[in-house]
């Protein structure tokens, strides 16, 4: 039995290793803010959000499958939270059933397993009930499949056959165990057997010859004998105790899987509610295929910035369809970094099936999403800053593949402009040849302008604006790269306020 709420044909893998670039993505796109908004302080929701968001989907169908489910979720928040709570209750009650003894002998494992199974019968019946009651209110393929599956697999006669096992496991006629001879003629391969049903008529019973049998009886006060006999019995019960305990675990992990997959959508519900409170719009994005080059949006804002400020966050519009390279230049604190982050975030959210923080958003899917940001702190004393940047870039080159998205922020500025520009040109042009989509925020005028002059048809240039009075609008406009970055403004602002040092 599978929940299939994250993928049409496979489980959501909560333990999957995060992609190798995850640490950089989390840092550069400030993903922790997003995860926290989805988790609302719940550690588990946080874990699920992190895993689900970073494991991007690469097919349009896969994205739409989740989008449909998410639409159902947004329309039925109460049912979703009820289902989610049921999975949590099951886990908590199972947790409270302790093993009777600390010995972990097969008999005690079997006893606990029987108790747990009795609990699961109750919870499964409840789960099935919620589905039967609400099925009409859901229209996505994912939820329809889930409810139909519960209805099909958990019929009444199935519950009856489980109860039959629970009765047999009381062993009123003793246990019957088969064995063979192992190394050194020690008994081996002990297996519990179901005794053959007795012949129906007493005549048949009397006329059939009994097979030869030899019986040994435990002498009174033979304590070592008693424990040896108990061990033989345990050896016989071992496999069945294991089978039942594992079955319990399987049912438990079904609930766990259901919980994990619902948790992602509960996270989405949490995020939607908080954005609604701030009056920020959301929309379902339109994904295009990996090979296409699409990037068109309106009102795209940085969802992480929203949670760090009380002000409404300014959105940007862009039409960069059929472009491979977006180069952003312009004023310091002009919103370049925020813009790049909002781009990365929206791409990531789209690729895990979420809604995006924009009025509308359409982009091609990417095979991977990478960020290469200039790091403020020098990580090691050994390697210089440029060394550090280049070695990070080299790691990306190791992992990257065609149709990936790579966001550079102020990269290769740790050396003089000519050298930095040459490095940036070499890297960018090679990546473009390999069909990698690039967003590049840069102060490297030589680099930006050489790309502009060569008039490469697939690039688009954006500039951080500032008004004539020096105020920034935080809006980006299309425009050719300018040589100055308005650092003077910052100097005036900071030094002007304090006077000469």
């Amino acid at each position: 039995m599978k929940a299939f709420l994250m993928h049409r044909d496979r489980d959501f893998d909560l333990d999957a290793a995060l992609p190798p670039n995850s640490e950089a993505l989390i840092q550069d796109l400030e993903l922790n803010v997003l995860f926290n908004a989805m988790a609302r302080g719940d550690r588990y929701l946080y874990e699920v959000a992190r895993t689900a968001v970073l494991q991007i989907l690469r097919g349009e169908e896969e994205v739409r499958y989740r989008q449909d489910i998410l639409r159902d979720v947004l329309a039925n928040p109460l049912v979703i939270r009820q289902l989610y709570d049921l999975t949590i209750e099951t886990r908590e009650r199972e947790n409270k059933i302790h093993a009777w003894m600390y010995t972990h002998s097969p008999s005690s494992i079997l006893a606990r397993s029987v108790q747990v199974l009795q609990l699961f019968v109750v919870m499964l019946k409840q789960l099935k009930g919620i589905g039967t009651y609400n099925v009409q209110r859901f229209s996505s393929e994912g939820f329809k499949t889930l409810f139909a599956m519960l209805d099909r697999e958990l019929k009444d006669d199935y519950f009856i056959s489980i109860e039959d096992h629970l009765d047999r496991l009381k062993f009123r006629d003793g246990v019957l165990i088969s064995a063979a001879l192992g190394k050194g003629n020690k008994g081996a391969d002990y297996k519990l057997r179901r005794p053959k049903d007795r012949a129906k008529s007493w005549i048949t019973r009397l006329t059939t010859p009994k097979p030869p049998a030899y019986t040994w009886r435990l002498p009174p006060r033979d304590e070592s004998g008693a424990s040896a006999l108990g061990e033989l019995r345990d050896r016989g019960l071992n496999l069945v105790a294991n089978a039942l305990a594992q079955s319990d675990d399987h049912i438990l992990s079904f609930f766990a899987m259901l919980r994990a997959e619902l948790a992602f959508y509960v996270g989405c519900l949490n995020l939607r509610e908080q954005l609604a409170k701030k009056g920020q719009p959301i929309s379902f994005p339109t994904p295009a295929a990996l090979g296409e080059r699409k990037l068109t949006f309106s009102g795209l804002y940085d969802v992480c910035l929203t949670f760090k400020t009380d002000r409404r966050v300014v959105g940007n519009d862009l039409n960069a369809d059929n472009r491979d390279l977006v180069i952003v230049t312009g004023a310091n604190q002009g919103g370049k970094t925020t813009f790049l982050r909002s781009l990365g975030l929206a791409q990531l959210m789209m690729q895990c099936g979420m809604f995006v923080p924009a009025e509308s958003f359409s982009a091609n899917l990417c095979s991977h999403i990478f960020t290469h940001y200039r790091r403020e702190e020098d990580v090691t004393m050994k390697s210089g800053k440029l060394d550090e940047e280049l070695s990070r870039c080299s790691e990306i080159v190791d992992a990257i593949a065609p149709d990936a998205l790579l966001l550079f922020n102020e990269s290769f500025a740790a050396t003089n402009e000519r050298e930095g520009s040459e490095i940036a040109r070499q890297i960018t042009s090679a990546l473009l040849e390999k069909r990698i989509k690039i967003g590049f925020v840069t102060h490297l005028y030589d680099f930006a302008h050489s790309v502009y002059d060569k008039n490469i048809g697939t690039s688009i240039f954006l500039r951080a604006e500032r008004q004539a009075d020096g105020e920034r609008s935080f809006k980006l406009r299309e425009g050719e790269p300018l040589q100055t970055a308005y650092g003077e403004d910052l100097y005036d602002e900071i030094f002007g306020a304090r006077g000469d040092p």
Partner: protein
Amino acid sequence: MTFHSILFESAERRPPSDAFAPPDFFVDLNLDQIVAAITAGKEEYNLAPFFHWSLHDADAVLYRHEVMRDLEDADLLNHIKSFAGALRSMRETLKQAEKRYYRRQKEALFLDAVDAYCGAIDLLARNLGLADLRSRGLLSFRDYLTDYAASDRFTSLLAETKKLKADLSTVKYTLQIKGGAITVRKYASEIDYAADVEETFRKFQQGAVKDYKAKFIESPQMNHVEAAVMDRVAALHLDIFVKISAYCQRNVAYLDETIGAFDREIQFYVAYLDYLAPLRRAGLSFCYPALSSRSKALRVHDAFDLALAHKLLAERATVVCNDFYLSGAERILVVSGPNQGGKTTFARMFGQLHYLASLGCLVPGVSAQLFLFDRILTHFGREETIDNLRGKLQDDLVRIYEILDQATAQSIIIVNEIFNSTTLQDAIFLGTKIIERITEIGALCVCVTFIDELSLLNDHIVSAVSTIVPERPAERTYRIVRKPADGLAYAMSIAEKYGLTRRQIRERIKS
């Protein structure tokens, strides 16, 4: 020719006894480490004595080269290893049988041991029959084994063992445990209940789950309840168990002595090849040296210190190889140069190569022409505290005197960093005296020293130097060369260093 031994072609060549101590130079040359690593895990064969006994006869060395060449065939080596594994487990099983208390247990284990033996002989005979053997040793052993495997004595043992094992494996029974009573019957195909339970819950299966099976303490010894059950099982299958008892009494002495000795001695080769295997996988070369006891011309390519290579491999560090040669009247290599540059390693390598060659083993290197010596004499000075200068100098000289006294024109002398603690004047004086003396004897010699003057004393001497990277004097190449290297360094552009030029990226990213 009848088979004698896989290590010694005939009884005359065998060492007088099996117990001799390692030679004096073992520690200096780190051969003790090498032999310890080779024989580790093979203690039951007591192989060390074979590694302590060097051969001085080119044909005896050749006898081993032949066997080792044959064993370099991976299939053949595996056949020998599985044979060894089978006999090892046979011995283990016999040991077990001795320790058991109940008769039925002893008998079952004895049967297993003989079964392992028969299987091993049978398999080895078949495998060797198909192998393309060249060596005198293995060809003659194959003849012996083939005769043995076809003998009546062996074939009837094999047949009877198989039959009884098969009979035992058919025994299957049930226990009905109720209260304090156990009833034993023959098994009558009752249904597996655990499978029944699994089937019911199959629909919930979600991949791997925890294993709840209890781990019972598997005492090999039966307890009295198990023995009582065993007696009843035997009573249900009386015919089988009577036959087994008779078999065990008849076959107490089943093992062939010559095959037992082969099993031990072939491990000399197996152990050595196993020790080389990881080094070879790491790209290091080994070769069969050409050996002469007349010509002192030496020529070695890409050799290395075996003990050091083994250690570096564990640390995933690179092994630096070295070449050297001596020709014409050259007899003495005087090695000087910066410290920590690989001089001592070079001296050890020189000694190891010659010693390993005298064992009939492969030696480190792509090719090697070496000298078949009568003895190796070493003196390795050690960094000492200044407290007892005079005492140490005296000890050094006493030791050097002994060496020069024993040395012949057929000997190899290795002196390493002696007189380090004396005054320069003393060191030059003593060093010169000793080198002159060695020149007179005509022995081959490697002398590691900080005294450059020693390399210029006469025409029998060749100077070699440990080298550095000229731009970064702190860096060592660990190469020892006959003349100073230029050490031309090349600069790489920083992007190139990270593989980030346009051309490099294009090659690195797969389309």
